[in-house]
């Protein structure tokens, strides 16, 4: 390879794997992939319903039972009985984690980050519980309820959008007050 070609390849690798992609390109890809997912699996992209199943599988593994829970009557109960490898959303979530790992490795940006302050731990735990609980009672997270909900022209997606703005406003006030 001549030095010019090597240089050009270096620039292409950098553009493709290291530099951040523009927001519009990410948006287009997400829209396209969601259509693909909808046409192949029959349901649009979602993330957090599978997390509820993961927790339920763990709970069952240690001897718990969720069979009389309202949430696990009907379709969710069937998904739970079918197991992890028959649950498209669980596989998709696994794909997101592995894909993110691959992307950060290809960019040579993998790093174990230090926890800087105990307040970060408290914020992460409290935030995680609130988001998990909120995602269940709102019929989805910012993927299932907002992204796929609005794309399906479902009213719940737009109600969700209104309240996520209010929540983000409140959350940013708390963040400035306690974490900055």
């Amino acid at each position, binding site marked *: 390879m001549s030095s010019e070609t090597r240089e050009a390849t270096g620039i292409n690798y950098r553009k493709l794997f290291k530099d*951040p992609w523009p927001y519009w390109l990410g948006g287009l890809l997400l829209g396209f992939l969601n259509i693909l997912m909808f046409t192949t699996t029959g349901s649009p992209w979602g993330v957090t319903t599978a997390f509820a199943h993961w927790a339920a599988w763990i709970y069952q593994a240690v001897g718990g039972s969720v069979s009389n829970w309202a949430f696990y009557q009907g379709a969710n109960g069937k998904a739970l009985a079918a197991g992890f490898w028959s649950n498209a959303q669980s596989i998709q979530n696994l794909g997101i984690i592995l894909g993110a790992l691959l992307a950060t490795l290809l960019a040579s940006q993998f790093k174990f*980050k*230090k926890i800087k302050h105990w307040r970060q731990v408290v914020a992460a735990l409290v935030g995680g519980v609130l988001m998990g609980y909120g995602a269940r009672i709102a019929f989805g997270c910012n993927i299932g309820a907002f992204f796929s909900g609005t794309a399906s022209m479902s009213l719940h997606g737009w109600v969700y959008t209104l309240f996520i703005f209010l929540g983000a406003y409140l959350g940013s006030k708390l963040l400035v007050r306690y*974490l900055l």
Partner: protein
Amino acid sequence: MAEHRLDCYGEACPIPLLKAEKKMKTLAVGDTLVVLTDHSCAMKNVPDWARKQGYDVDLEETGDGEWEIYIIKNH
């Protein structure tokens, strides 16, 4: 022409950006702010913000997943 270093390692969005904005206000014209971050979003949104303010910006990858963002307060 002093150089101020702002350690934002281990901090996620939007904290590095908010800290940089706050710190920048305390700098004298001609000073440089160096934001140290290991958060890939901050490597995009901090330079984006600084360029929008009209500051001179330079981004250096100092290690795997670590960056130093140089912002010169030129006005």
